[in-house]
Each structure stands twice: as C-alpha cells, then as structure tokens.
C-alpha cells in the first residue's frame, strides 16, 4: 500500500477505513478457513485408514491367500488382490503409456494446426472427463460379452481410462520443449522421427514419465472399471487372460458392506496398501519432475 503524503491532518490515509479493513480480514480468514476445511476430511480419512489398517499390514497380509469372509484378519491376507492390482494395472500401463506418448507426439509434432490434430486434442481432453464406470461398461459390452471375464479385460478398461490422461500430459510437456532444439536437429539433417525420438522426447522425458506415473496411480485406485470386467474372485489367478481375477480396489468395495469384523479389517488394510501405492507413485512422480524435468511451466 503506497503511503500517500498527507497534509496537516489526523487522518492516516495509509490504512483503509474500518469497514473496508474488516471486510478484507474476513475475506482472508475465509480463505484460510477454506484451506482448513479441506484439511479436515483429509486428516480424518488418513487417520482412520492408518489407525485401522496399520495393525493388519504384515508380509503375510500382503501375500497370503484370501480367507473366508468370516475369519478374523489374522488368518490369511489379501495376496491375490495385491497381485491382481499390480498385474492388471501394470499391463494396462504397458498398453496405455506407449500409445499415449505416441498420441501426444502426434498432436504436438505432426499435427500442427491441422483440424484433425485439434479435434483429437479436444476429444482427448473430453475423454479425461468420461466417468470410469463408462469405461467398465464399454469393455463389458465389446469384450466381456464375447470373451468372458478376465484380468485382461480389466486392463483394457484401465488402459482406456489412462490413455487420454497420458496423451494430454505428454502433449503439455512436449509443448514446453523449445523449437530451437528441433530446428537445430533438422538443420543437421535428421528426419522428423529421429528428431522426435532422440532429441525432443528425451528433453521432455522427465515430465512425461511423471505424468505417466500419476496416470498409473489413478488407475491403481480405480474400482468401477474392474467391477464389470474381472468378476471378482477370492483365489489367486496367475493367468491374466482367462478367468476371474481380483484387485485391492474391488476387494475393498466388496468388504465394505460385509458385517464381519475380519472382512472389514481386511478392507482397511487393503485401503492403506492402496493409498501407500498411490502416494509412492505420486512422490516418485514429483521427484522426477523436480530433478529431471528440464522445462517446467
């Protein structure tokens, strides 16, 4: 606030009058209250999940087979669900990340101002907002009805979910790479593919990997796409391509409404595991951005 030189008066014009100042203070307090309001549920949920889930976690919990529902949490564990989450999400990532990166490359490097590129960009954006349940129903309709339930169907649904996210984040990262880099490479006689693969992508790789990891974190926690595609089972199924499978997220969904304390405890333990996986991925993504992203917004 600039101090206005006053004449010989007692009014100090540096400070706003009472009511204006109060309004300002209320507004500032309001903003801090908004922040606190957001902290409350976050703290509450983390407190609950850690409190109820931590006691269940053990190596046995993460690897042993799923016991019958009525048994307490000291028996068995959620091994098949951990396996399912990792393998189904892993396979979905294997499908979605390369395709997403290529799609982002198309929009930014080859698309230019063409209508097709802008249309794809726009619809990739729209597709990020499609509810995950739609992806599950979609894969149910075109895959499960013909080939049955399987972990692979779940991976397909998750890949549909991840694809637009990876495309968008790749596109954003590639945009930040300065054109001078590309022009210098062209001047040296390289083809477009070579420039993209050996110069542009490595320059943006930090941001791209970090964006991909966030997409993986999101997919690992998704339940709705899996409910319609993997036909949840209790036993370990190592074959991704045939037969029902299970995952941490669907196990939590099933056990949430069970009346047995053992089943609920397994749900809390799985919730903690899932949050841990998502957090770790997020932190790794942030670290990669901090250390390897050469160009930041």
């Amino acid at each position, binding site marked *: 606030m*600039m101090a*206005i030189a006053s004449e010989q008066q007692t009014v100090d014009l540096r400070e*706003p009058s009472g009511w204006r*100042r109060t309004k*300002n203070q209320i*507004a*500032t307090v309001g*903003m*801090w209250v*908004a*922040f606190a309001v*957001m902290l409350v*549920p*976050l703290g*509450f*949920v983390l407190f609950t*999940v850690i409190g109820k889930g931590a006691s269940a976690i053990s190596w046995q919990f993460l690897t042993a087979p799923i016991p019958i529902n009525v048994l307490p949490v000291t028996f068995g564990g959620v091994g098949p669900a951990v396996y399912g989450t990792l393998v189904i999400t892993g396979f979905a990532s294997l499908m979605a990340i390369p*395709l997403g990166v*290529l*799609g982002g490359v*198309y*929009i930014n490097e080859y698309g230019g101002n063409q209508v097709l*590129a802008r*249309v*794809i960009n726009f*619809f990739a*954006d*729209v*597709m990020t*907002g*499609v*509810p*995950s349940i*739609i992806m599950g*129903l979609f894969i149910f*309709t075109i895959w499960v009805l013909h080939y049955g339930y399987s972990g692979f169907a779940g991976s397909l649904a998750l890949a549909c979910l991840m*694809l*637009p996210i990876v*495309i968008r984040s790749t596109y954003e990262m590639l945009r930040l790479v300065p054109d001078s880099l590309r022009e210098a490479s062209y001047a040296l006689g390289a*083809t*477009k593919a*070579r420039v*993209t*693969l050996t110069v542009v992508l490595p320059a943006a790789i930090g941001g791209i990997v970090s964006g991909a990891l966030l997409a993986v974190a*999101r997919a*690992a*926690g*998704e*339940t*709705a796409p899996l409910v319609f595609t993997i036909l949840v089972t209790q036993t370990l199924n190592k074959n991704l391509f045939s037969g029902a499978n299970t995952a941490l*997220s669907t196990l*939590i*969904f099933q056990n949430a*409404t069970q009346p047995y304390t053992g089943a609920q405890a397994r749900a*809390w333990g799985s919730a903690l595991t*899932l*949050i841990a996986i*998502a*957090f770790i991925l997020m932190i790794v993504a*942030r670290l990669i951005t901090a250390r390897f992203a050469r160009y930041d917004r």
Partner: protein
Amino acid sequence: MSIAAKADPATPAGSASPLTKRRPFGDRTFQVLCLAAGLLVLIILALIAISMTQQSVTWFTTAGWSGVFSTNWDPAHGAYGALPFIYGTLVTAAIAIVIAFPVSLGIALLLTEVVPGRYARPVVYVIDLLAVVPSVVWGLWGFLVLAPWLQKIYQSIASGLTGVPVLSTFFGGTSVSGTSFFTTGLILAIMITPIVTSLSREIIATVPTIDREGAYALGATRWEMIRGAVWPHSQAGVVGAVLLGLGRAMGETIAAALVIGSSATITTHLFNPGYSMPSVIANEFGEATVGEFRSALIGMGVLLFVLTIIINLSARAIVDRSARRTRGA
C-alpha cells in the same frame, strides 16, 4: 513397443542433399504409428457411444419414453423407470458443487494472492494428497465412519427443525444408517475440490499482474483487488472449472454407491437415502442377467455418458475462451 527407428538413410558424403530424397520408410512408419495412436481416442469414444447405445435399445423400445422416465423402478416386476436415479445424480452433484465451490475458490485465492510463492508448495502438496486418495477409500471411510457419525447429526437437525416451513422440507428427514443424498454430496465435494482448485488456480494465474498492481496502486485492500481486478477476468474460467467439477461429481461411482443409501425414491429430504445412476449400475449389475434389466442399466450408462460429455464440452469451451481472452491483455 517396438518403434522402427531406422537409421537415417545415410547420405554418403558427396551425394545429393537429403532434402531431395523421398522420406525414409522408418520416418513414415513412425508418423503413421503416432497418427493411429491419436485416432484411437476418437475410435474409442465412437465405439463407446455405438456399442452401449446398441445394448440399451431393448430398454428404450420396450419401455418407451414414458417407461424410461417414470419413477417406478421395480426390476422384479419389469418396471425400469430411471427418473429416481437421474434425480439423485443431479441432487448429489448439486450439493457437491454448492459445498466445493466456495472452498475451492477460497483455496485457489489463498494460493495465488495470500501465500507467497515458497509457502504455496506445501499447500499444493496437500491438495495433491487429497486428489490421490482413491475413490473406494473415500467410500469405505464414508460408509463405516462418516455415515454413522452423521446419522446422529441428521437426527438432531431434523428434530430441531420440525415445523420450520422451508428448511424442514429439505433437512427434516433422516436416514437410519446415515447414508443419504447429503452424505454423498459431502463426499463428492471432498473429491472434486482438488480438481476445481487447481483449475481455478490456473485461471486466476492468467490475470495480468498489471491489473492487480493497478488496483493496489489505487489503494485497494486485497479483497477489493480480488473483487475488482481478479474476479472479472477469471469469472468465466472459474465457472468452467466448476462445470468440470460438476461433471466429475456426476460420474463418481464407487464412493456414491457405498454412501447413498440405495433407495430409489424421489424426495426433497436431503437427509434421506437415495440412489444415483452410477450407483445403481455398480450395485445392481451383478444381478442384471435378464435382458431388459441389463439393457436398462447400460442405458443409464449412456445417459450418464451423454450428460458428462455435454458438461465437459461446455466447461472446456468456457475455460478456453476465457483463457484466450485474458492472455491477450
């Protein structure tokens, strides 16, 4: 992925310039590959629309428009009216927006105007933490912890408001287990806050500094500056952000399925249990082996898809337009 990154067709020293040669095979393959990957987006969206509409035709033709939009949902007797679920989806999303909008805007303003750059980072991390908690965990916590706790609060509010004219129609009901429209709206609000906040932040950050400084120069308090310089510029963009949050709230499935109460009734009592489109699809799909039942559920999926696409389209259009306008200043 095996990309055919063939070696650059080596131009032996002294031969014609590479610019006059045909584009090498590897280069073209790569471009086609990228194009195919990009087209996948359009293909998938089209397939979703086509295949799901196909599956839901049975419902539309058997029930007709009056059946589809009736309030009678009774699968055991062949009635598949979707109105209670449409109502529930809209109501819970509306509650979510009403709660999330001021909170998100407040945090966004906090980050852009109040907190200096260095300290903004921890706040952003906290918002990211909120965003990364999976939906099913919110549902688990909501069902086992929040709902029982809220049940007592609903009861006291409802009994305290008996007889009060307007308020009791909305807040006079109660739910035996705490699961209700309002509980769902609350959880949805928590879940959409991160996305609305980060988008609002981006919008507000595009307000030119010169306008801010001008306001301060004229002696405005921070609040007056926000009202006078920031808000007019970012108004439209924030509306777009809110619309995006709305779209997300409408589509949120698992958390809603667990805390909404699974009761297909239309009522103004927000503390009563209800049902929404994604929730009923998730909860009842396992039992829907009869043709029309499953067709009805997929049909509701189509309705949801169309609704969220429309909302997202408008949201993006508004956000893009507002961003373009301010950037020019």
